[in-house]
């Protein structure tokens, strides 16, 4: 198996051209820095913890916000930890949810230990077997263009694995205060009044 060549920063820059008004849940680890670096805005929720929960959080958000696309951008280690969530998503078939797995085949935050994908585990294949109707694996620029097109016009739900090089990402750190991140996201999506008085 050849080493993944795509640069994660280049990939995210290109995918963000397809973002539109999509909401983003960024999974713990490098995807948080990737999203903060490529398109920092209130409609991003950055997971500084809760490894394995990015996809289920994206599902909950997508089911609540049917009129907008929701992207989960996460890593291979994070996706593997919550891999059962693909079955949960498949059962609901949300037509506004895209899961983008930036797969560098390593645990980037803990010392670059190998993940199972470095030994051949195929996350897109796992998603497909779980019943996700649209899956893809991207290894080159043409594939990234194809993914951007899929993010613009569907069909969703989609699980896309982008094989990226195991390089150090740009370390752009978003705020760490979870209450702030939650409230700014809700305010951007719901408006200030509804964000504070939904109860």
């Amino acid at each position, binding site marked *: 198996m050849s080493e993944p060549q795509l640069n994660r920063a280049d990939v995210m820059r290109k995918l963000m051209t397809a973002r539109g008004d999509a909401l983003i*849940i960024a999974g713990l680890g490098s995807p948080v820095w990737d999203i903060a670096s490529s398109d920092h805005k209130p409609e991003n929720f950055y997971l500084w913890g809760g490894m394995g929960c990015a996809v*289920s*959080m994206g599902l909950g958000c997508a089911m*609540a916000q049917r009129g907008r696309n929701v992207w989960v951008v996460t890593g291979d280690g994070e996706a593997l930890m919550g891999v059962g969530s693909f079955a949960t998503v498949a059962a609901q078939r949300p037509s506004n949810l895209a899961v983008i797995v930036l797969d560098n085949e390593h645990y980037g935050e803990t010392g670059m230990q190998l993940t199972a994908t470095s030994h051949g585990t195929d996350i897109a294949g796992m998603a497909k077997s779980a019943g996700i109707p649209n899956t893809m694996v991207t290894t080159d620029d043409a594939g990234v263009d194809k993914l951007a097109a899929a993010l613009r016009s569907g069909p969703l739900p989609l699980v896309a694995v982008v094989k990226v090089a195991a390089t150090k990402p740009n370390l752009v750190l978003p705020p760490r205060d*979870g209450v702030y991140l939650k409230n700014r996201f809700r305010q951007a999506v719901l408006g200030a009044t509804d964000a504070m008085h939904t109860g």
Partner: protein
Amino acid sequence: MADAWTVEAHRLFKKHGIKTVGYVPDAGLTDLINACDADNDIKAVVMTTEEEGIGLSSGAWLGGEKAAVLMQSSGVGNTINAIASIVTSCQFPLFMIVTMRGQYGESNPWQIPMGQATAPVLRSLGVRVYEVETVEDAVGAIENGLKMAFVSNAAVAVLIGQKLIGAKSFIADVAEEVSHV
């Protein structure tokens, strides 16, 4: 006839605007799951592990909706880091109904340790735990728990005791015949 507390729980879900109910099944939750599944105003989401319920509920809140999470007490063990890291750190509202195993009349010894640990473990994370053993207490805890969760951004777990739902009987519930080797 459906268990009385489940009829009230479903009514209160609707009264408080619960739109999504994530669950990993338990025998004691059957009537409530069925009621949610049959209700067009509620999306019932079967999950592969209880941890997903924490993500699902928090994600729904980000999108402006209220969710509830249903599970058996053993499943609470699967939610711990998600509650600590996501719910506690971000003060997400969380409303869980947990049907208890490992308590009164339990016949499976493997259920007892997590059943005994359920309330203290949840409390250690700052979850408000209401342990109920009567229909009246269950209804009060669900009503007030829903208010606290979504108005006060609290994490609330209502533990439905085995005195209320009954201890599972293998012979009656699982098989036509049971033999031992």
